[in-house]
């Protein structure tokens, strides 16, 4: 028999620290597959976030530098401006990108930095133990919104792709999910497209990935996948939010 699927070369053969069913693990693998398929392993430089995925450097076999919480796109900006021929991408969670790092995200996008952002939206702070995120849904219970997020006082969840779509220099913004085989395939295509936009120097590209956090959502992994379908996509509709032809 012929081997039709095995671990991508860019993904180190070590067990991941993520919880069972965590979307980060799937997204890491998709990135590694693309690094292999697009021959990017030798030019890629990744800036992981502060959060669960800070340890991405234990798994992705590429050059990496850690950024302070929220500052990944500023660090990526510095790298890309010095090394325009490298494939530079940040990997950030919702708290990192849309709370503490909102200014960096917005202005990096507005400058049209030729980087790609992998934005993992799981509507919660994972590593710190399930606190309310900027993307936490209305009414969603977290450890710091014990009676559910009150949109009157805590604001509604921020739709990052839509927010960035008004900026002239953003050229590719898509929202996808990693909760089913079909969606995972779409996610891989979307990340590929973001990398292609960077290669063709069209502008700033970002893929927002709805991803499950079973532990902090207090659901089993399969229920988490269904929750994305049934609840989360209503607030965060999937699809291409903006694309400028490249």
């Amino acid at each position, binding site marked *: 028999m012929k081997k039709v699927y095995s671990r991508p070369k860019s993904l180190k053969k070590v067990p991941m620290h993520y919880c069972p069913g965590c979307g980060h693990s799937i997204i890491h693998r998709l990135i590694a597959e693309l690094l292999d398929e697009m021959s990017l392993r030798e030019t890629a430089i990744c800036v992981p976030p502060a959060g669960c995925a800070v340890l991405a450097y234990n798994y992705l076999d590429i050059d990496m530098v850690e950024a*302070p919480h929220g*500052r990944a796109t500023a660090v990526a900006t*510095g*790298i890309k401006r010095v090394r325009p021929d490298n494939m530079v991408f940040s990997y950030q969670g919702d708290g990192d990108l849309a709370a503490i790092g909102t*200014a960096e995200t917005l202005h990096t996008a507005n400058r049209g930095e030729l980087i790609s952002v992998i934005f993992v939206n799981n509507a919660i702070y994972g590593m710190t133990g399930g606190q309310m995120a900027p993307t936490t849904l209305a009414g969603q219970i977290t450890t710091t919104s014990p009676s559910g997020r009150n949109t009157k006082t805590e604001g509604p969840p921020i739709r990052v792709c839509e927010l960035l779509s008004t900026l002239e220099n953003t050229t590719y913004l898509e929202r996808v999910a990693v909760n089913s085989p079909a969606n995972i395939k779409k996610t891989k295509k979307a990340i590929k497209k973001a990398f292609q936009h960077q290669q063709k120097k069209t502008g700033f590209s970002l893929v927002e990935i709805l991803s499950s956090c079973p532990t902090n959502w207090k659901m089993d992994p399969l229920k988490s996948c269904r929750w994305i379908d049934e609840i989360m996509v209503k607030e965060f509709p999937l699809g291409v939010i903006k694309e400028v032809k490249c």
Partner: protein
Amino acid sequence: MNKQLMYGTYAIGEAAIQAGCTCYFGYPITPQNELPEYMSRRLLEVPGGVFIQAESELAAINMVLGASVAGARVMTSSSSPGISLKQEGISFLAGSELPAVIVNIVRGGPGLGNIAPAQSDYFQATRGGGHGDYKTIVLAPASVQEMADLTFLAFDLSDQYRMPALILGDGMLGQIMEPVVIPARKKKKLPEKDYILTGARGRPARLVKSLILDTRQMEDHNWKLVRKFQRVKQNETRWESFLLEDAEMVVIAYGTAARIAKGSINRLKKEDPDIKIGMIRPITLSPFPEKIIRETAGKVSDFFVFEMSTGQMVEDVKLSLEGRGTVHFYGRPGGVSPTPAEVARIMARHYPQSKSTGKK
């Protein structure tokens, strides 16, 4: 380059360019805006030159981190409140052992303070400034020429020891014009940058980070940083001695305060040629020139510290003296620059009576 009249901030900027700085990231704040303005013009003329006016000091220092890890010589500048914002990034640079040159043109504080020259950021600069166990190299110029010279040095030391180097100026030094010669870069033999990120072509992937979850490893890393700083202390401590040989009282001051103090000493000498006041001017505030101060205590018992703050470096002087001698302090915080005449009056008051020549 020939001698020319230049602003202090321009001298830093031009020296940085000559030193091979190709990237500048910053955010406007008075009194240092002339520096980013200068860099925005000059970096256009430099191949691969990058200038970004960032959205904040936070973003700027992290762009610095990115450019540094990508292998560029990179600089940022700001003034006190902005430097406070940069501290997170400076701590990350130190923890990740990345070089960068950071210029602080200090203004009066705390809070928004004012925009006048001050020395109130001494503690922040010399104690690391951000969170965690680390120190940075801090250079204190006292003239426009020295602003240029120490900029060259800052880049070299920062690269050599893989740690951030700060230039601690103030609004006066930044905005005065003086004749200056910007020399061509003397290329120093520096360690190869074998840590920078270029993409893992033909080599294992590299990782630059400051997260060390294992406590023993983190402890080792902390001690490693300490040992590195001890090497800096051993090799790079710099100061200027002025009339120290037969001094009966030694003034210790840095930067603009040292210029004023020098004027005061000259003034007193003119009035009374027998008065014997010398000066030690720390050029590196971190590492602090504690050895020369301690040695001087064997010959002199009175030390006069003058700072444009409520008294920060004076603590390092006392630590250096380890109880020897008497330390007199005069401070003018809040952005006040006293005249040499005023400081001379205070100096004379503290000049040891037994040594006084009696003339007035």
